[in-house]
C-alpha cells in the first residue's frame, strides 16, 4: 500500500516557498463532490472541518497544502445536454458562491489577476470558477456571456464527449477540431476575458484553438503525452507552441493519466465498472465499492510526486518554465498519488522539485506567477478588444 512519505529536509523549504508563492491550482471538483455526496447541503459536508476520507478538499488541508488560489470547477457530466447541462452548471456556480459566502475569512471571491494578488496579500484563498465543457453553454454565446457575468473565468472546450462544435480527446473525430462556431466561441471568450482551457480536448481542437485564440490558453489539468501516452495529456508539438501563445499547461496528478502502468490498470478497471452496469466515472457509493473490490483483487499501480515531477521536468523542457503550472483535479478522481493524496500534498511535490534542483524562482513561476500572468494577459486582450458581442449561432456558422 501507500508508502508513508519520507520526511525530507527540502519539505521545510517547500513550505516556506509556498508561504510566499502559494499554489494556483487549475482544477478542483469539490462542487461536484458536494452535489454527489451531500446534495449541495453544505452543513452535511462542512469543509471548515477535516473531511479526510470523505473529500480530498477542505479548508484546513488547503491551508496546510499551501494553496493560494483555486479554480473551482463548475463541471457537469458530459452526458448532460441542453437545458439539463445549463441548469446543472448554474447550480454548480451557485454552490461555489454559497461556499464563498459561507467562508469569507478563508475564501476570497476572485474575478481578476488583481483579485488573486489581493487575496494572496490578505492570506485568503483566491477563488475562481472554471466551467468544464462546452456542453455547459448549450451552443449559445449568450449563455457563455451569462457564465462570464456569473464569474466563470475559464471554460474547458469539451469534456469527455464531443460537442457539436469541438472534438474531445476521448471521443471519435467529429468536426475535426473546432468548427466555425467553435472558433467563434474562442473569439468571444477572448473578447470577454475568459480563458480558453484545452484540457480534455482532442489535439486537433488544441491546434485550432491555438490558431484562433488571441489570448493565452490554459490546460487546467493535463500532463505530458511524451511521458505517459494518454489522450488526456498534451503532445509535445502543442507544448512547444505555448511560448508563442503565452499560455500555461497545468500538470495534473491523476494516476491513470500520468503513470503508464496505471493507464493499463484503469482500462481493466473501467471494463469491470461497465461489466457491473456502471458508468466508469461514477463516484456514487456503490460505484466506489465496485472499484474497491476490483482494487482488492488487482493491486493498483501507485503514482507518486516523483511521477508528476517527471511530467513537470518534461513539460518545462518542451514549453519552458514560464508556461507550466499545477492542476491537481482533486475530488475529480477516485485515486491520487500516494504522497499527493489530497490538497495537503502540494509541499511534497515542491520538495521533490527542489530535490531535482529546481530553483526558488522556477518554483514561484510554477506555483503562482505563470497562472496569474495568464489571467492578466487574457484581461488585457479583452480590454483591447473592439468587437461587439457576437450574435453568431451554431446554425448560422455551421449550417
Amino acid at each position, binding site marked *: 500500500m501507500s508508502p508513508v512519505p519520507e520526511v525530507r529536509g527540502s519539505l521545510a523549504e517547500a513550505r516556506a516557498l509556498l508561504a510566499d508563492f502559494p499554489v494556483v491550482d487549475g482544477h478542483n471538483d469539490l462542487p461536484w463532490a458536494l452535489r454527489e455526496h451531500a446534495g449541495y447541503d453544505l452543513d452535511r459536508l462542512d469543509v471548515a472541518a477535516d473531511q479526510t476520507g470523505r473529500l480530498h478538499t477542505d479548508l484546513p488541508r488547503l491551508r496546510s497544502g499551501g494553496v493560494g488560489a483555486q479554480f473551482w470547477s463548475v463541471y457537469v457530466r458530459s452526458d448532460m445536454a441542453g437545458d439539463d447541462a445549463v441548469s446543472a452548471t*448554474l447550480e454548480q456556480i451557485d454552490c461555489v458562491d454559497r461556499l464563498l459566502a459561507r467562508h469569507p475569512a478563508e475564501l476570497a471571491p476572485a474575478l481578476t489577476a488583481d483579485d488573486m494578488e489581493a487575496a494572496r496579500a490578505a492570506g485568503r484563498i483566491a477563488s475562481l470558477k472554471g466551467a468544464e465543457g462546452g456542453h455547459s*453553454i448549450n451552443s449559445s454565446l449568450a449563455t457563455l456571456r*451569462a457564465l462570464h457575468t456569473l464569474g466563470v473565468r475559464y471554460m474547458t472546450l469539451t469534456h469527455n464527449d464531443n460537442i457539436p462544435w469541438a472534438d474531445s480527446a476521448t471521443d471519435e473525430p467529429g468536426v475535426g477540431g473546432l468548427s466555425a462556431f467553435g472558433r467563434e466561441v474562442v473569439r468571444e471568450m477572448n473578447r470577454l476575458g475568459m480563458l480558453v482551457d484545452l484540457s480534455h480536448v482532442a489535439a486537433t481542437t488544441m491546434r485550432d484553438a491555438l490558431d484562433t485564440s488571441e489570448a493565452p490558453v490554459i490546460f487546467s489539468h493535463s500532463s505530458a503525452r511524451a511521458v505517459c501516452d494518454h489522450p488526456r495529456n498534451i503532445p509535445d508539438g502543442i507544448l512547444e507552441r505555448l511560448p508563442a501563445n503565452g499560455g500555461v499547461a497545468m500538470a495534473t496528478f491523476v494516476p491513470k493519466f500520468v503513470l503508464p502502468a496505471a493507464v493499463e490498470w484503469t482500462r481493466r478497471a473501467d471494463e469491470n465498472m461497465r461489466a457491473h452496469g456502471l458508468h466508469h466515472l461514477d463516484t456514487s457509493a456503490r460505484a466506489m465499492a465496485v472499484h474497491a473490490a476490483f482494487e482488492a483483487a488487482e493491486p493498483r499501480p501507485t503514482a507518486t510526486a516523483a511521477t508528476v515531477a517527471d511530467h513537470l521536468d518534461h513539460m518545462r523542457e518542451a514549453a519552458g518554465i514560464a508556461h507550466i503550472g499545477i492542476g491537481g483535479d482533486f475530488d475529480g478522481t477516485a485515486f491520487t498519488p500516494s504522497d499527493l493524496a489530497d490538497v495537503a500534498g502540494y509541499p511534497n511535490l515542491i520538495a521533490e522539485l527542489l530535490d531535482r534542483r529546481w530553483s526558488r524562482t522556477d518554483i514561484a513561476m510554477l506555483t503562482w506567477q505563470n497562472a496569474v500572468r495568464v489571467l492578466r494577459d487574457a484581461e488585457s486582450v479583452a480590454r483591447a478588444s473592439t468587437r461587439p458581442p457576437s450574435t453568431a449561432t451554431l446554425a448560422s456558422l455551421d449550417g
Partner: protein
Amino acid sequence: MADLQHLPYADSAAFGEPDDPPPAQAPTPAAFDLERARVLLAAQLVVDGHNTLGQQLDHTHWQDLMYGSVLLDTDIPRIRAGGVGAQFWSLHTGPDATGDSAVSATLDRIDAVTTLIASCPEALRLVTGADEMAEARDSGRIASLLGPVAGAALADSLGTLRAYHALGVRSATVAGAHWTATGLTPFGESVIREMNRLGVLVDLSGAAEETMDRVLAVTSAPVILSRSAARVLTDHPGNVSDDILRRLRANRGVCMVSFAPGQVCHDDQPASLRDVADHVEHVRALAGPESVGLAGSYGTAVDAPHTIGLEDASCYPNLIAELLHRDWSEADIAALTWGNAARVVREAKAPH
C-alpha cells in the same frame, strides 16, 4: 413625426391621411384632460409591468429603437412620449423555445436585453431595486427591470433561480413551472420562499386560481400580476378573479392591468381604452387604490392587434386622461402609475 406620436387623439387631424376611414369608436379625450394627464405623468411617470420587446431583439437594431422604429409599437421616443419612467422587460422566450432549451433561451433574452440597455446608456439604465429605479428616473433614464422569466425557465432548480437573480432578474412568472401544475407543491413553496429571500417578485399572471391562492398563503412579500385584467369583466385565462383581487389588499401586491385587446374585451368587439379604464377601475375597487398598476403589454409589431387609443407605448396619457375624466384623484393616479409598483419593488427586497 414626434407630434404625431405625442398626441394621436388630441386632434382629429392627427389620425393619418385624409382618405383613411376614421377608426371605430375612436375615443377623443378632452384636450384639457390630456394636458392634465401629461402634467401628472411628468411628475409621476409610469412603471410598466410588461413589455415583450426582448423577443424582437434578434432582428431589431438598437439604433432603430433609439431613434424610432416603424415596425414595432415600442421604441425609446414613444416610451418617453408615453411617460414611462420604468419598464419591466419580459424575458419570456416566445413560442420558438422548445422545452429542453428554456434556460439557455432565457439566458439569451437576458443577454439581448442587457446588451440593448448597454447600447442605449442615454435612454435606458439597468436597475435591480427601488432606489436605483428612482435614481434612473431622476437622471432622465428609463429604469429597466429584468423580468419576468418564464416559469418553465426556472428548471425546477433553486440554483438556476439564484443565477437569474445574480444576472439582475427581479421577477419570475410561476405559471408554467411544474410545481404549479396542481396548486403549489412543497418544492414550489420553497421556490416562493427563496424568491422572497432573494427579492425576486412572484408574478402570478397566467397562474391557475388554486396556485394564486396557495402562493398568497405562502409568500411573505407582495406579489405582482404583471399583465392581468379583471376576469369578471373579460373571461380570459390571463385575467384574475375578484377573490384574488380582494386578497391583494392584505398582501399589498399589485395587479398591473394589461392593455392587450383580448384581455380587456371579448373577441367579437374592438377593444378601446375605455375598456382598459373599466378594468383599471374594477381592480381599484376590489384590490384598492394601492394595488393597481399598468401593463401596456407592448413590444410587438405595429400591425399586431392593439387596443384602440392605446396603440403604442406613447399612449399612456390617453388612459390617464380618461381616468381624470372619470374623476380619479391625482393621488390615485400617482399610485397607479409609479407609486404602487415602486413600493412593491422596494418591499420585495425588504426583510420579512
